[in-house]
């Protein structure tokens, strides 16, 4: 699980993180904090699905479920065999 956390965090930093003065953690609010917008959420979902060979239903890919790394990892975990 730590491995998934690290991978997701690294992807978010690489792909979305803009404010290099601040620090991003597993609990940093991504959607409500304005780091990941609705468009970017789509690409994040696609990244997770390709990376872990899973399919996340659209109704599960909510802003709440994507709001921090911990929540994202929990969501991914539900769909990994």
């Amino acid at each position, binding site marked *: 699980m730590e491995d998934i956390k690290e991978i997701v965090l690294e992807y978010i930093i690489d792909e979305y993180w*803009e404010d290099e003065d601040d620090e991003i953690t597993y609990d940093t*609010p991504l959607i*409500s*904090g*304005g780091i990941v917008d609705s*468009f*970017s959420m789509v*690409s994040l979902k696609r990244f997770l699905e390709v990376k872990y060979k899973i399919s996340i239903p659209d109704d599960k890919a909510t802003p709440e479920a994507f709001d921090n790394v911990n929540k994202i990892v929990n969501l991914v975990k539900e769909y990994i065999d």
Partner: protein
Amino acid sequence: MAYSDKVRGIYSDTLKDIEDKGLFKQERFIHSSQAADIEVEFPTGAKTKKVINMCANNYLGLSSHPDVIKAAHEGLDTRGYGMSSVRFICGTQDIHRELENKVTEFLGTEDTILFPSCMDANAGVFEAILTEDDIMISDRLVHASIIDGIRLAPALHDTFKHSNMKHLEKKLQLHADKRLKVVITDGVFSMDGDTAKLDEMVALCDKYDALLFVDDSHSSGFLGKTGKGTHEKYDVVGKIDIITTTFGKALGGASGGCVSGRKEIVEMCRQKARPYLFSNTIAPVVVSGILSVLDTLSKSTERRDKLEKNTEFWRNGLEEAGFVLQDGDTPIVPVMLFNAKLAQNFSNDLYEEGIYAIGFFFPVVPNGKARIRTQISAGHEMHHLEKALAAFIKIGKKYDILGKSKKEIIEMYGM
């Protein structure tokens, strides 16, 4: 279904929910023409109050200029009130084509097509020119109307970090196999007032064989030496493939927008863009007003020069007073307060001092980035700016934020 109590209840509950979340937008009624000094009724039903407008898009102060009003009257008298039809059937007048030609000349492009608004231009252009074999790569902070246009297009979509050229280059490499690549950006980003690095973007688009789209709504008329826009500021006139802009801000302030750029792209819009094909074009009275504005701007840079000086005075004054500002050199000068409640209270206190400037907070800007967005106009005289600055400083002292850093303000008020 009839408009039953059930239906009414659904909407009432939704509206109450919006209000409970503090997201309800209450309009302030202006009982005068748009200008530096306006008569405002706020809250609704209150006695009107004369205030200085520090948050209008009236950058050149032309919204109520006597010459524009006179031209509009002449347009009304000679061309009538409305077209009563979509343009390609029976709704085009000679002045519509005249305006397209003048905009083309002013912006330094190949051709122009008018739309009812810039929102319509952005809604129509991507679908008209792209297919599922193409890719749109947009800056993360582009305007909502561009996002709507992207949603309507069949092409794939990806984003790059705000103004991050390394990230953009990575995305251009990633999507190298696509038939067409379109890089999409605002010229001036309306929330922060910063500008896109168009010189670097043109170089990257040349290198990776991509088209460049710029929405220059918050720039046309005043940015650059002669006011052409962001492309003039960055010395890339003639190198932007698609420019969309509005006539509803600096260029008269009434309504209307356009797509200006490569002639084949403009022709594609004329053939396929749905907001163009299925909506009346700009009313003759407005076309005449805009033509007058373009004539004025072609003769003299006096207004954009005054706007530049006003902006410099305002930004320097706020900085010297100790406010935290967003970096930039456009007439959009956001005063950062970080906390939504503080932004709302600050705005209300300004109103009490006779200054009209609105607080912006989530979801308009991300949580923790609440601010008062001030916008400077050539219609402001020094006495307006001095009075507004004094009011900002007075209220800044009240909340003890002058000279405080972002971190200190967040520690005092939270995010």
